[in-house]
């Protein structure tokens, strides 16, 4: 066998190996999705999605409060977490050439790797013991995770804006803060949006920090005080009940959660696809 054929065979072999690895990697994701869709779809109904009835051994009940809880807490976290994260990212990218900023960056990186349960415990000790369980506490705990991610992705997106833009704006006599806000930020816009959406998708799926702060509930919220439920906690409490009704409810909730996360991820893909197509 000559060298050329050997090389071609090796090439083919490695390509096949690579393809096999991809399949192996995708199988778990695929099987999970399949399982959740198959088990969760039967539970879906308008009543399931909107009422607040408890599940019984035979029926899944309603997960309305859980959906509301997830949306409210993720919403609150985003409301104050994204602006804080973005401003932190801007500072680190544009003005962060010093040791103080380096320390901040280190902190931020550590926080993203933090076991999220610790965020929950911290807010429990600092906030819940004083004010009690609430979706606000849940949002605070989630922000421990959201803010560092948003800060990091914002900083990276802004750093990707080429320096020639900044040079061009200072040569025009535009002040730095003005250039940052009006030009650099706009140029980094899609990166910022992508980063924020990904962080939101991440916190939508968190369970542990909410256990100690929102605690979980089966009723619709009347105010921002008092315990609140979420899809994640709902799954956590109901999956181990021995009755099919409870289990169906858990699968249904899992399906809804996955759909929400999927929707956010698709929105991210669309946003970056649009950018690549050259639209502003």
């Amino acid at each position, binding site marked *: 066998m000559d060298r050329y054929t050997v090389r071609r065979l090796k090439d083919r072999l490695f390509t096949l190996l690579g393809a096999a690895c991809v399949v192996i990697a995708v199988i778990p994701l695929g099987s999970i999705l399949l399982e959740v869709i198959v088990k969760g779809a039967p539970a879906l109904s308008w009543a399931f999605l909107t009422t607040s009835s408890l599940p019984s051994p035979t029926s899944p009940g309603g997960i309305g409060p859980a959906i509301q809880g997830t949306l409210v807490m993720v919403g609150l976290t985003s409301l104050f977490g994204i602006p804080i994260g973005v401003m932190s990212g801007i500072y680190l990218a544009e003005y962060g050439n010093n040791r103080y900023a380096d320390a901040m960056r280190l902190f931020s990186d550590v926080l993203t790797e933090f076991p999220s349960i610790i965020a929950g415990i911290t807010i429990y000790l600092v906030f819940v013991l004083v004010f009690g369980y609430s979706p606000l506490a849940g949002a605070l705990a989630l922000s421990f995770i959201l803010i560092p991610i948003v800060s990091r992705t914002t900083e990276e997106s802004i750093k990707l804006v080429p320096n*020639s*833009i900044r040079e*061009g*704006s200072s040569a*025009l006599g*535009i*002040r730095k803060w003005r250039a940052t806000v009006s*030009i650099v930020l706009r140029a980094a816009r899609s990166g910022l949006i992508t980063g924020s959406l990904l962080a939101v998708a991440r916190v939508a799926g968190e369970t542990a920090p909410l256990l100690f702060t929102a605690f979980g509930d089966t009723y619709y919220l009347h105010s921002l005080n008092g315990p609140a439920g979420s899809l994640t906690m709902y799954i956590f409490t109901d999956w181990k009940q021995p009755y099919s009704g409870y289990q169906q409810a858990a699968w249904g909730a899992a399906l809804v959660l996955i759909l929400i996360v999927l929707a956010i991820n698709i929105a991210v893909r669309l946003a970056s696809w649009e950018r690549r197509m050259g639209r*502003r």
Partner: protein
Amino acid sequence: MTTSILDSSAMKTLEVDNGDLRPMQGQSSEKIRTVSLSAWYNGKQALNEVSLGIASNAVTAIIGPSGCGKSTYVRCLNRMHELVPGATTSGQVFLDDENIYAKDVDPVMIRRRVGMVFQKPNPFPTMSIYDNVAAGLKLTGMKRGRNLDEIVRVSLEQAGLWEEVRDDLDKPGTSISGGQQQRLCIARAIALEPEVIMMDEPCSALDPAATAKIEGLMITLKTLYTVVVVTHNMQQASRVADYTAFMYLGKLIEYDETARIFENPQQELTERYITGKFG
């Protein structure tokens, strides 16, 4: 005495006075004058006591091999050199007889009077052509009470781009060709009505046709502005400039009318550089 075929309304002769080259009194005045300007990057010297007078309403080219300090020099003229961390200067720079490095001078105001165009065209990516040209005015608070449409049109006309983009002002600034983008950057600088326009190797990234357009621009612009061009392309300097300064290793070696520099340079180093014996 050779006379330049380009009818420059500026100078006929230069006079050396205390080692400070400047045009003869009574003829065209100087727009910018540097006195013993030196500059460092983190202690490493890039400019060594450069004293030079740049004539108004003329094109002055600065030539020299890589690393000779020509880019650093022009960046000191609009106080952009100090934006680099660790960069320092000493000496004086006079813009119309005021020292731009004086204590109470706002560097941002200097940059509005001394505009700059860079080697790689850098239109703002998220803005339309119109917005790009207006950006300087809008973002420096200078747009009050002015007719933006008019200014954008005039700037694009002066930059020789109006006819090509008049119907596409809303298209993104990056959707036009490289040569057009560079003219857009020139229009953007012109919109601020600066007194000086500096160009740092403006044609390096462009093809010969685009280069020719921009060189033609330099000559028409000099009637309204003072133009300074940094170039490593000696033929470009010999084509467009009224005066040429040759720098080497941070020092000013020779400064004279372009025709004289390229026909009969006085310094040995200049002769060797322009005939290609080194560099």
